[in-house]
């Protein structure tokens, strides 16, 4: 009997809130196409409405770089190891803008998709993941600007360039972790969106975006590397400009990313059961 076959196929158990804290990876795998379609939706919506959308993605890093270059080559001159300062800043800004935009947008991903959460079931992590993934396109659009600048300044490229994707991946994991954390928090606490810009501002200043880590005394570098962006940006620059990788810094930052991801997933799991009732 066919009905007997289908009965054995999938069994769903519904259990009370908070009784399981594990993540059902199989469930995520079976919903992978939803992740694809939600990402596609976010990308389409962001770029569909206006052409300004794309122009903005290009203009933002260029203008920020120009401003920072003017300011810092006038008031403070950082030692950037033979890398022209505009290029140095741009390489940091490109990553920072991705982090900043993606976390800001992703933190509101549940509150902007209320009816998805209250009307259908799917593993909830898909929402912040799709939102962060969609922002990668911004990063991909801004990378050619970086290449154009490198050609313009005549910076050579070494074998180390092959390492660049690794640091972009780290940047993604870190951003997704923060996005997951804030998106969950935002369901419960609606003032997260007011606290977030402040947090991001402090974070930007604490990251080696317009200054090099080499500015710091050796022993403080490792402390500084607890900020995951330190390792990501330093590693990304070393890959681009062929300077030496600072493995201890990169190592500490990577570890830091893993810890943040673990915390984010834990907090998310603790809160997601109540999403539909709270949102």
């Amino acid at each position: 009997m066919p009905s007997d076959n289908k009965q054995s196929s999938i069994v769903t158990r519904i259990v009370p809130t908070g009784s399981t804290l594990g993540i059902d990876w199989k469930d995520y795998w079976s919903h992978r196409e939803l992740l694809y379609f939600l990402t596609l939706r976010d990308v389409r919506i962001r770029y569909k409405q206006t052409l300004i959308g794309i122009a903005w993605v290009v203009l933002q890093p260029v203008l920020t770089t120009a401003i920072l270059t003017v300011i810092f080559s006038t008031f403070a001159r950082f030692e950037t190891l033979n890398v022209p300062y505009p290029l140095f800043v741009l390489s940091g800004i490109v990553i920072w803008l991705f982090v900043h935009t993606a976390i800001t947008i992703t933190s509101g991903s549940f509150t902007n998709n209320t009816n998805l959460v209250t009307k259908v079931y799917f593993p909830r992590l898909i929402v912040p993941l799709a939102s962060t993934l969609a922002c990668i396109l911004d990063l991909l659009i801004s990378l050619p600007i970086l290449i154009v600048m490198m050609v313009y300044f005549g910076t050579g490229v070494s074998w180390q360039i092959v390492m660049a994707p690794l640091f972009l991946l780290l940047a993604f994991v870190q951003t997704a972790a923060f996005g997951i954390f804030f998106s969950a928090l935002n369901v419960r606490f609606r003032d997260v969106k007011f606290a977030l810009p402040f947090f991001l501002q402090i974070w930007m200043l604490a990251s080696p975006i317009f200054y090099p880590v080499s500015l710091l005394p050796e022993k403080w570098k490792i402390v500084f590397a607890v900020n995951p962006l330190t390792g990501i940006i330093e590693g990304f620059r070393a890959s681009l400009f062929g300077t030496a990788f600072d493995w201890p810094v990169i190592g500490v930052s990577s570890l830091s990313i893993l810890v943040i991801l673990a915390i984010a997933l834990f907090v998310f799991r603790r809160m997601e059961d109540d999403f539909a009732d709270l949102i």
Partner: protein
Amino acid sequence: MKTIEVDNLSKQYVLGETRANSLRDAFRNFIRKPLGNSKKNELWALKDISFDVKDGETLGIIGRNGAGKSTLLKILSRITKPTSGSARIHGRVASLLEVGTGFHNELTGRENIFLNGAILGMRRSEIETKFDEIVAFSEVEQFLDTPVKHYSTGMYMRLAFAVAAHLEPEILIVDEVLAVGDAEFQKKCLGKMNEVSKTGRTIIFVSHQMGSIAQLCRRSILLEKGRLIMADHTNLVIEHYLNHGKAKLASYTADASATHREMYVQNGTIVNNAGVEQTSFRHDESILINVKCVINRMMQGAELRMVVKDGRGITIFTTDAELSSLNAKSKTFEVDYKIPPNTLRPNTFSIELSLFVPHQHIIESLADLLFFSVFDSGTKYAQSEGVDYGVIFSPCEWAVKQG
């Protein structure tokens, strides 16, 4: 073979202060907690619900507003989790608590079909295979590459339902989706549901329309204030639902949840000519409905609508009382409706009241608010009881002429 086993399911909601809405409040509560005990306002939306659904069965869920129907569907759809108890579901579930979930106005019809399909749990290959069928069913071929924000409501609904109608889960959970859209659309939906139920799939169906429930479900459960009070053949359950506790239902008094509205019905009663509350009327007796309302803020152009429905939930007639004559300063008003003698034929009837501004705004809508029945006290039709002579006495005149 049991497809769904529900075991002692309960869901509690905590209302009021204990749920912090901002970090600031959370912090303040954290500081206060050791000092004062926070007041809890608990509500059991569901309490100890147990039932089974057999393989291939279509089960109806019946109950008044707030009985816990939606909460039950949400738990079975895994949208929210129960507070205690458990359930086991064998098979692939798709739930339709709304049509067009995830539809985005900026996206085209084509893009929305894929997105919505994926949200409802369809595989991409599955959507591709059924794409032409979905488009044909929705009748929006020419507008497939137009953003849905340019669609009419009808087109939008048809497209949304077309996607949902092509789901092929083993278990389908459906809520009231049929309540929206025009008659043609509802007919199409019901037809499709009927078709689906005949393919041996298991369906759980919630509706306020007893007609649709009776048509689709052989067995139903009745919920009242979060408890399961009956599980039996649909006809018996509907009868119980419509007849049970009718004595109480000759009158209605608003509870605190209504008082925040601009205007609300404070009180509604069904009385006879002598002004006595009554639920059972002779066919040749006047039926009077007295409604008292409170005005917090006068809405210009508001009307009080009374809809009379028969036992199957089919609308018999609608009367709109215009409120334009009210003094701007009045805080309350009363409306008396009178159904003249010899209007309604023997049947059970329900009354729906709603306050609304035509074409703009629904202030309050109260379905199945009051109930009454009419019995035949001696027309010639009374002699052959049980024959369906319609719901109203025919105002049709006739004349016979010698040929």
